[in-house]
C-alpha cells in the first residue's frame, strides 16, 4: 500500500483518499553540481495544477527547526508566498541527499543546494511562460506564485505552468542565479514552526503516535547491566497475562555485532552498533498491557563482566592515571615541564564531569511492519539511513526492501543518532509477523542510553612575572581502548597553539557501556574544564578574564604538524577575529567593564568555538548561604555567519542550549554493580521553568556563509555560570554535577 506521506500517522483514515494531482515531475541534469549539492527540484517541490505548492522537508525534525528552515531556503528562491506553501516531511530516500540531524550541519550543508533547487524550478517556470507567450525569458519576472510579463501585462500562476514546465529541458546548474540576499523576503525573517498548529491541537505527529492497522505493542526488558545475558525467564507465566500475544527472548547478542564499533558519528564519539541486546520482549494488544505484564517478569540474568563496574572505581582508576605518565600524547610542543618549573606562578587544578543521559522527552520508539520480505518502518530518528543499513545487515533484508518514514521527533540531542531501537522494532516485527510499535519506558531510556562520556582532567598552567600564560599542560583520563577514546579533546582545542609551551595528554580505561554524542559532544564537557581553568589562570595573574582570553586569541597560532592534524575543529580552524567579535559584543551588552561587585552576586565569562560557530556568554548569578545558585541573566553573543535563516528558530535554539547547559550541570549517571542508578527525571533532573534565567541574545554578523547553532551556543554557558559562581563566592566549581561541588540551583 502506498501511503500518503502527510497522513501516514492515521493510515486507517486514508485508504479512500490520497492525492491525485498533477505533480511537477521531471528528471534533472546535475552534472555541474558538486556531489553534496546534487539535489533535484523534482524531489523537493510539487506544484499541483491547482497551484498548491508542496515543499518537502528532507531532514529529521528533532526540535531544531529544520522542517521550517530548510523549506524556507527553497521557497525564497522559488518565489512563493510562504503562507500558501505546504511543507511535508520527506521519507528516507536517496533523492533528498543526506537526511540526518547531527553536528549542527543542516544550515551549512543545505544553504546553497536547497536555494539552487528553488531557483532552478523558478527558472523552468519562467521558461514555460516565455514559450507560451513567445517572448524572451529575460523579459519575464516573478511575483510570489506567478510568472509575469510586464510589457504585455500578462501573467500565469505557477500551477498553470506546471504541466508545460515538465516538458522542458532543465537549466544547467551554472546558469542558475541566486537572489541577492538584500532581496530576501523569507530568509532572515522570523517564521513560526510549520507544525505549530498541529502541536497545539494535539495532532498525531510523533513516532509514539503512529498507528498502523493490526498493530501490536511491545516492551523490551533488557539487562540492567550492559552486556548481560538472559539465563532464564518465567515466560510461560507472562504469556498467560491479559493481552499478551508473544514473548520473545534474546539470550545472547550475536557475536558479529556485540560491542563492535560500528560507526564514528563525531571524532572521538563512537556509536556502537550492538545488534539486538539480550532481554525479554513482551508483545501485547496494548502498550499498558505489555508494560503491566513486565512488572511480573522474572529474569535470571548473567550480568557478565560489566557487573564489576562502578563510578567509584572509574574515578579511582582515573586518579591513578592522572598521576602516571599518559598513554597518548595528543599534542606537545615547546618544553612544558621546563616552563612550568621556571614559571613565576603555577596553577594546578583537577576537574571532572560525569556520564549523562539524553532523556529526550519522547522515549525511544519505532513502528515496524514486515510482510512478504518487505519492511516498512515509521521512526523518530536522527539517523534513519544508518538505522536502515543496520537493519539490512542484521536482519538480512535487502535495503531496497526497507521503507522508512520519518516522523516528527520528540527530542534528539544526539541520542537518536544511535538506531538500536529501530533495529529492535524491526526484529520484533519480523519475529511476530505483525506490525508492532516498540516503545521504551522512561526507565529503559535512562538506563539504556549511550551516555555522554565522563571525563577526569588534570591541568597545570604556568604564568610569567607579567601574568602571561607561558605553559599549559592538560591530561584527560577518559574511557576507551586502542585509538578510540570517548569524548577526547581535539589536539587543536584552544588554547592549543596559542601558548608557547603546551602538552595535551590522554589516558583511557576500558568501559563496558555505550557512549554517544550529546548536544555539542566533547565540547559540552571540556569547555567547562578548559574555560574554567583559563578563568583560574586569569584570576591568578590578577587580570580580567576577557582581556586574558583576548591576549591568547591575539597570539600567532603555532600550526599543527600536518600528519597529526587529523582531528576536526579546535584551533586549526578557529578564526580569532570572529571570536574577538563575539567577545567584544557580549562584553559591551553585559556591561562587563563597569560591573560592580555586590556581595553574593557575581558575573562570569566564557567563550567557545565548535561546530563552526562562535559564542561568548556572560552569566550573572547570586549564591545564597546554602550555596544555592540563582542564574539571573545570561547574555549570549554568537557568530554563525552572514545570515540567520530563521531568527525565531535561531533564538529558540540558543535559549534551549543555555537551559540544557544548566540541566547538564546538575545531572549525572552513576554506576553501582554495573547498573545505572538513575531511572527517571526525579534522579536525572531537568532544569525547571522557575529556574530559567533571562536570556538575551545578540548576533555578530560576519562575512562567512551561514552555519548551524544548535550546538555551539551550549558549551560556554557551563563555564560562564561556574565562573560567575566563583566571582560571587570565591569558590571554584571543578566537579560536576554541582552537588558534588557543594552547590545546587535554587
Amino acid at each position, binding site marked *: 500500500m502506498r501511503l500518503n506521506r502527510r497522513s501516514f500517522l492515521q493510515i486507517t483514515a486514508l485508504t479512500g483518499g490520497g492525492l491525485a494531482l498533477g505533480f511537477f515531475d521531471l528528471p534533472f541534469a546535475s552534472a555541474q553540481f558538486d556531489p553534496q549539492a546534487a539535489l533535484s527540484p523534482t524531489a523537493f517541490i510539487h506544484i499541483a495544477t491547482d497551484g498548491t505548492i508542496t515543499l518537502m522537508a528532507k531532514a529529521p525534525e528533532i526540535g531544531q527547526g529544520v522542517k521550517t528552515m530548510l523549506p524556507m531556503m527553497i521557497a525564497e528562491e522559488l518565489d512563493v508566498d510562504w503562507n500558501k506553501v505546504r511543507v511535508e516531511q520527506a521519507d528516507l530516500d536517496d533523492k533528498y541527499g543526506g537526511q540526518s540531524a547531527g553536528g549542527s550541519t543542516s544550515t551549512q550543508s543545505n544553504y546553497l543546494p536547497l536555494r539552487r533547487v528553488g531557483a532552478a524550478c523558478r527558472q523552468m517556470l519562467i521558461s514555460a511562460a516565455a514559450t507560451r507567450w513567445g517572448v524572451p525569458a529575460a523579459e519575464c519576472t516573478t511575483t510570489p506564485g506567478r510568472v509575469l510579463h510586464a510589457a504585455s501585462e500578462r501573467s500565469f500562476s505557477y500551477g498553470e505552468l506546471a504541466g508545460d514546465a515538465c516538458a522542458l529541458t532543465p537549466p544547467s546548474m551554472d546558469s542558475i542565479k541566486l537572489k541577492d540576499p538584500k532581496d530576501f523576503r523569507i530568509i532572515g525573517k522570523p517564521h513560526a514552526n510549520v507544525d505549530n498548529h498541529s502541536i497545539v491541537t494535539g495532532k498525531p505527529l510523533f513516532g509514539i503516535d503512529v498507528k498502523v492497522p493490526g498493530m501490536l505493542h511491545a516492551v523490551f526488558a533488557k539487562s540492567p547491566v550492559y552486556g548481560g545475558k538472559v539465563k532464564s525467564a518465567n515466560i510461560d507465566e507472562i504469556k498467560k497475562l491479559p493481552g499478551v500475544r508473544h514473548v520473545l527472548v534474546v539470550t545472547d547478542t550475536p557475536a558479529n555485532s556485540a560491542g563492535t564499533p560500528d560507526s564514528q558519528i563525531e571524532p572521538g564519539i563512537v556509536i556502537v552498533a550492538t545488534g539486538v541486546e539480550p532481554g525479554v520482549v513482551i508483545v501485547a494488544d496494548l502498550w*499498558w498491557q505489555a508494560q503491566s505484564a513486565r512488572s511480573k517478569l522474572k529474569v535470571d540474568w548473567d550480568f557478565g563482566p560489566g557487573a564489576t563496574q562502578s563510578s567509584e572505581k572509574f574515578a579511582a582508576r582515573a586518579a591513578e592515571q592522572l598521576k602516571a605518565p599518559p598513554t597518548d600524547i595528543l599534542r606537545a610542543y615547546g618544553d612544558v615541564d621546563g616552563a612550568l618549573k621556571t614559571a613565576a606562578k603555577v596553577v594546578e587544578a583537577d576537574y571532572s564531569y560525569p556520564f549523562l543521559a539524553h532523556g529526550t522527552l519522547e522515549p525511544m520508539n519505532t513502528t515496524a511492519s514486515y510482510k512478504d520480505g518487505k519492511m516498512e518502518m515509521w521512526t523518530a530518528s536522527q539517523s534513519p539511513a544508518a538505522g536502515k543499513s543496520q537493519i539490512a545487515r542484521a536482519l538480512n533484508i535487502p535495503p531496497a526492501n526497507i521503507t522508512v518514514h520519518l516522523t516528527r521527533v520528540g527530542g534528539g540531542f544526539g541520542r537518536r543518532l544511535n538506531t538500536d531501537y529501530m533495529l529492535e522494532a524491526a526484529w520484533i516485527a519480523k519475529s511476530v509477523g505483525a506490525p508492532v510499535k516498540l516503545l521504551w*519506558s522512561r526507565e529503559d531510556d535512562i538506563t539504556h542510553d549511550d551516555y555522554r562520556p565522563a571525563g577526569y582532567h588534570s591541568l597545570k598552567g604556568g604564568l610569567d612575572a607579567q601574568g602571561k600564560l607561558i605553559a599549559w599542560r592538560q591530561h584527560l583520563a577518559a574511557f576507551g581502548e586502542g585509538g578510540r577514546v570517548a569524548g577526547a579533546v581535539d589536539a587543536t582545542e584552544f588554547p592549543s597553539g596559542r601558548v608557547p609551551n603546551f602538552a595535551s595528554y590522554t589516558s583511557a580505561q576500558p568501559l563496558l557501556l555505550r557512549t554517544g554524542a550529546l548536544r555539542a559532544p566533547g565540547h559540552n564537557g571540556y569547555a567547562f574544564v578548559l574555560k574554567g581553568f583559563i578563568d583560574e589562570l586569569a584570576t591568578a595573574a590578577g587580570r580580567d578574564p576577557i582581556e586574558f582570553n583576548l591576549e591568547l586569541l591575539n597570539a600567532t597560532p603555532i600550526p599543527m604538524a600536518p600528519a597529526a592534524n587529523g582531528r576536526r575543529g579546535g584551533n586549526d580552524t578557529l578564526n580569532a577575529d570572529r571570536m574577538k567579535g563575539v567577545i567584544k559584543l557580549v562584553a559591551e551588552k553585559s556591561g562587563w567593564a563597569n560591573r560592580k561587585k555586590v556581595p553574593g552576586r557575581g558575573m562570569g565569562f566564557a567563550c567557545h568555538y565548535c561546530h563552526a560557530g562562535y559564542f561568548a556568554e556572560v552569566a550573572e548569578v547570586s549564591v545564597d548561604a546554602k550555596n544555592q545558585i540563582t542564574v539571573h541573566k545570561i547574555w549570549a553573543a554568537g557568530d554563525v555567519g552572514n545570515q540567520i535563516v530563521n531568527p525565531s528558530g535561531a533564538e529558540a535554539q540558543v535559549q534551549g542550549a543555555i537551559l540544557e547547559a544548566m540541566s547538564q550541570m546538575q545531572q549525572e549517571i552513576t554506576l553501582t554493580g554495573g547498573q545505572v542508578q538513575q531511572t527517571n527525571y526525579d534522579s536525572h533532573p531537568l532544569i525547571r521553568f522557575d529556574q530559567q534565567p533571562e536570556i538575551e541574545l545578540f548576533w555578530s554578523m560576519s562575512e562567512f556563509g551561514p552555519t548551524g547553532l544548535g550546538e555551539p551556543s551550549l558549551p560556554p554557558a557551563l563555564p560562564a555560570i561556574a565562573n560567575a559562581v566563583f566571582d560571587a563566592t570565591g569558590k571554584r566549581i571543578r566537579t560536576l554535577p554541582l552537588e558534588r561541588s557543594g552547590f545546587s540551583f535554587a
Partner: protein
Amino acid sequence: MTDLYFICLYVILSKQGTAMSLKLKVNNAVSTVDVPPDTPLLWVLRDVLDLKGSKYGCGIGMCGACTVLLDGQAVRSCQTNVESAVGKSVTTIEGLSPDGLHPVQVAWEQVDVPQCGYCQAGQIMTAVAFLAKTPHPTDAQIDDAMAANLCRCGTYPRIRQAIRQAVKAGAAVHTS
C-alpha cells in the same frame, strides 16, 4: 469472617488486569471502554480512544506531558486510574477548543513556543487550568504554576511570553 475477607481479597486480586466496561466522558463525547479499571487514563486516551495529543514522558507524574483536565482541574493522566475519571468530564488538548483557537493555543502559535513540541500539550493544559483560576497572574504565580511541567528543549522563556500574551487576550473567559 476470615473466609469472607479472603473471598473479597480474591475478588479484588482477580479483578487486576481484568477488563471492565467503563463509561467515559472525554471532550464532551461519551464512550464506553473495556479496560482494567486500574489502567492509567493516559493509556486509555492514547491507545483505546486514539487521542494521541496527551503524551507519555515519565510515567511517574513528574514531567507533566500527560496533563489533562478532569472537571477543569489539571491532572497527570499517567497517575490517574481510568476508573477515577468515570462520572467526570475529561478534557484533552484535542478538546480544548473546537477550532484550535483557544487564546492559549493562539498565543503558543504566535510566540512560536514549540521546539520539538512533545511536552507542549501538557504545558498548554496546565496553563489553561492555571489561567482559569488566576486570570491576571504575577510572574511569581506563573513560575509556581508552570514549575512542574518539564521541557527538555528549553522553551520556558517563550512559554512565559505566551502566557503573558494569552492573559492579555483574555484566556480566562474561554475556559470552561
